[in-house]
């Protein structure tokens, strides 16, 4: 799959995943990288950026077995952004799919 597609869509996937559930870094990264093949490390700079933009916030949760874990969750702004990105994605893919199916029909004439 084209790298440019992936880059754009990665943010949407991360936000959508966090919208469902608050997660810690490793958890989120493992999940996303199964859905969309990117090197796992790239998700951390993205999470940092989302935090700087106040779309995501973090909290530390003490862990019995080791150092505290950083949990990521969406802010209210983050939820809004998720909705708009999801909507944009939907409109975009609808248009493209429509275009592709129509193109095929024209070729068959």
């Amino acid at each position, binding site marked *: 799959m084209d790298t440019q597609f992936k880059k754009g869509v990665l943010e949407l996937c991360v936000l959508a995943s966090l919208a469902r559930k608050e997660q810690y*870094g490793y958890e989120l990264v493992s999940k996303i*990288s199964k859905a969309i093949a990117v090197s796992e490390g790239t998700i951390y700079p993205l999470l940092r950026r989302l935090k700087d933009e106040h779309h995501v916030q973090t909290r530390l949760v003490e862990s019995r077995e080791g150092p505290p874990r950083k949990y990521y969750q969406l802010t209210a702004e983050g939820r809004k952004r998720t909705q708009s990105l999801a909507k944009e994605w939907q409109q975009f893919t609808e248009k493209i799919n429509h275009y592709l199916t129509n193109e095929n029909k024209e070729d068959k004439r």
Partner: protein
Amino acid sequence: MNKNTFLTTLRASLKGLPQEEIDDIINDYEEHFAAGKKKKRTEANIAKALGNPKDLAKQHKASHRIKKAEQTGSASNIIRAVSASIGLGFFNLIIVLGPFVAIASVIIALFATGIAIAASGIALMLASIVSPFITIITMPINSSLGLLFVGIGLLALGILFIIGTWQLGKLFGKLTVSYLKLNASIITCKKEKEETP
């Protein structure tokens, strides 16, 4: 690659960022390794899945620089953000780089012109005051008062030039930062930017 090599390479590549930020970034990856090892993965396996630490550092640096350029709007920060983004291989930035340098040069030239005009204005003002009997052959003004007024006019024009170019430069800077942010995340939502203050 084991965890130590990964983290050492990452830390070295992150040089230039504030120490606090570097430590925070390294902590995140430490946490990732710790979580992975609990799932019985090997360090080599975890490191490979994470990717090349030098590339990751480039991404972290670019994000940070774009953020700083947006906050401060200073020319040096904007230039750092542009070069960090080019380093990430945003191909279209190479295409845009030519025009970017051209426009930046024009702005610098306009700025220099403004200074030159203002300086000539000051020179004429001084000339009219210091040597009241000076007539400059090229100028059809042979009264020192007239010379003074021309000098003041040129100074004002120069200052206007400088102020105008400064504003133009700031606008250009903002546009550059917006363009870099656009490249960093392909899908943007213009509507949302209008909604949230």
